[in-house]
């Protein structure tokens, strides 16, 4: 069994296509993690703050309220915006590459400076009154992100499709072995039982290993970026293009802002457990379907409807994703039904309400179903893998 697992995993993970895909993912991840550096060479202003050269008094006035997208510099030649006081007027020079938005922004700040400067010339007794009249009192508050933003759901469904695609590869492997006559030859060296469980382990391990490899790539670039500038440039870019409402200066600061609780992590882990159990059941069913396939041409027509059924589960989880459905409607019922529960129950306890008893009951049902399907699958596998193999004894050594 060990040989079968090693052989299959090596073929899956170290074939030219898989390596190419991994290499491509590696490069794309690197490009994403360092997107600010290469974007700045193409579109400098997207990433870097606009340099402003201005008189000292204006700098002092604006320093506390200037936006993160701007920075004051002393050297005129470095500045893209130059502000000069000439006699009674203010002259502003704007680099041609800058947009109209910058002109409006500078105009607003300069106007504000001018207003306050002029007010300063009046007696102190009326200054407050003038400020009150000329400037509205605006209190700007960023709303906290919604707790039901369903980012966890997006994460889980992404994993759902990723794991499904990995697990279906195993069913295809059996089809290939059958159609290339390799199966018969392999079964003259290992028992049906060993072959069946080898296929199961291969499916599970390939899901885990491929997940690890992709997560590993992300962590690698994260570490490199951390050593480079702690992610400052990347966050600057995300802030500039309005992907983030707040400009973070390091990964650590960003992680702290996520306010990840122990409860949330536990919930996500339990959600994964549901997802994994469901995928395992799906995987066995796919194997069972695949062993009835005699020709490679049949594979699509036999497996196709099954994929549609899985898509149905996914879309139903979206349509039923309402408090009413999830707390007492169809979503509530489906959260206890194995296979459906891999999406519905995590959604309930992550975003709605589910008691511990309900979670344990659903998990037990999923686990029980998985155990039954594994046992039944083994028998079915033995009986139908080769013509006439029904009631074959699994006693080979």
């Amino acid at each position, binding site marked *: 069994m060990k040989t079968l697992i090693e052989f299959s995993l090596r073929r899956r993970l170290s074939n030219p296509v898989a390596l190419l895909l991994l290499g491509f993912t590696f490069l794309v991840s690197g490009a994403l993690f360092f997107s600010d550096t290469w974007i700045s060479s193409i579109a400098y202003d997207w990433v870097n703050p606009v340099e402003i050269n201005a008189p000292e008094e204006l700098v002092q006035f604006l320093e506390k309220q200037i936006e993160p997208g701007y920075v004051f510099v002393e050297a005129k030649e470095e500045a893209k915006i130059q502000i000069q006081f000439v006699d009674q007027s203010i002259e502003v020079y704007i680099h041609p590459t800058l947009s109209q938005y910058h002109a409006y922004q500078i105009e607003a700040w300069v106007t504000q400076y001018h207003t306050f400067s002029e007010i300063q010339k009046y007696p102190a007794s009326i200054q407050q009154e003038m400020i009150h009249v000329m400037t509205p009192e605006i209190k700007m508050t960023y709303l906290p992100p919604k707790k039901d933003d369903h980012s966890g759901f997006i994460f889980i469904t992404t994993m759902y499709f990723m794991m499904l695609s990995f697990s279906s590869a195993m069913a295809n492997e059996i089809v290939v072995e059958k159609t*290339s006559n390799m199966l018969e030859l392999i079964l003259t060296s290992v028992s049906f039982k060993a072959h069946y469980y080898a296929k199961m382990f291969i499916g599970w391990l390939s899901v885990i290993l491929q997940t690890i490899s992709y997560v590993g790539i992300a962590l690698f670039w994260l570490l490199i970026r951390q050593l480079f500038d702690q992610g400052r440039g990347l966050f600057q870019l995300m802030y500039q293009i309005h992907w983030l409402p707040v400009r973070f200066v390091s990964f650590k600061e960003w992680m702290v802002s996520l306010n990840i609780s122990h409860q949330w992590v536990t919930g996500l882990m339990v959600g994964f457990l549901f997802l994994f159990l469901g995928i395992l059941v799906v995987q066995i069913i796919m194997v069972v379907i695949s062993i009835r396939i005699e020709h490679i041409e049949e594979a699509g027509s036999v497996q196709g409807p099954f994929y549609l059924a899985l898509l149905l589960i996914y879309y139903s989880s979206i349509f039923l994703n309402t408090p009413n459905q999830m707390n007492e409607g169809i979503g509530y019922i489906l959260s206890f039904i194995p296979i459906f529960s891999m999406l519905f129950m995590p959604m309930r306890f992550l975003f709605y309400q589910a008691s511990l008893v309900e979670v344990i009951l659903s998990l037990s049902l999923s686990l029980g179903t998985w155990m039954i399907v594994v046992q039944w699958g083994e028998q079915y596998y033995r009986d139908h893998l080769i013509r006439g193999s029904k009631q074959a004894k699994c006693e080979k050594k």
Partner: protein
Amino acid sequence: MLEIKGVSKLYGDKQGCQSIHLNVMEQEICGVLGRNGSGKTTLFRCLLQLIPMDSGEVTLHGERLLLSDIGYVPEERSVIQDLRAWELVVFFAKLKNMKMADIYREMDYWFDKLEAQNIRNKRLKECSKGNQQKIQFICALIHKPKLLILDEPLTGLDVDNVELIKKIIYEHRKTGCIILLSSHQFEEIEHLCDRVLVLEHSIVKYSGRIKDIKDAHPQITITISDDPYRKHSDVEGVCRVISDGHYTKYVFREQKLAQKMFLSAVKNREYETMKVESLTLKDLLGDIHENID
């Protein structure tokens, strides 16, 4: 000794094999012969434990037959096309629990023996059918099996490879291995086999040593070329006439009468080719079939 005792396996459509009894000694080659659907493959599958027997027992040297004791070359090419030749061999050797050092040693030996060193690093999809068959032989032999099962091993091979494989089979029995092989090409395996098991419609029609069959059938044949009108059909002693393309084969019951006709034909220099021989396996099996029918 391989002992097959009353092995039966019938499918729903009543095809399969019934009550097969066979004993094959060490260093013996046994041909399993029969027409398509006679039960040869079912018997092999039972021995390989791919399908369960309805009844019967198989032992090797008095003990239960284990998968690790068997080497198998299937009738159809069964290779993973994108693998290199050596990778497939290593895979099957590891499935038989061989250690890597032993695998490499044996692999060197067998690639040399089968004159296949030139394809060792080639992908199997780049190899000819004959070369793929050689690789399957190496896969079957590398772990030194006690029982070698060859299902139509010579099918699809060119003349050179047929001779090479026959030589390998013949030599390999000297290691003490018991060899079962099936074939439609009776002539090809006649010189290899010590005994035969003839199956027809799932049952055994004949089982025994080839020498015993021939002793029981002392006929002699004269094969001559370019005799479309069977000129010698009425010659004294001719009991059967078989046409085979441009050749005609006369079967004589008595050696003396066959010699008489042969000498006469040689004297008159009537034909380009003349061949005198005892009955071939193919002829004998024809006899057996006819007698039973």
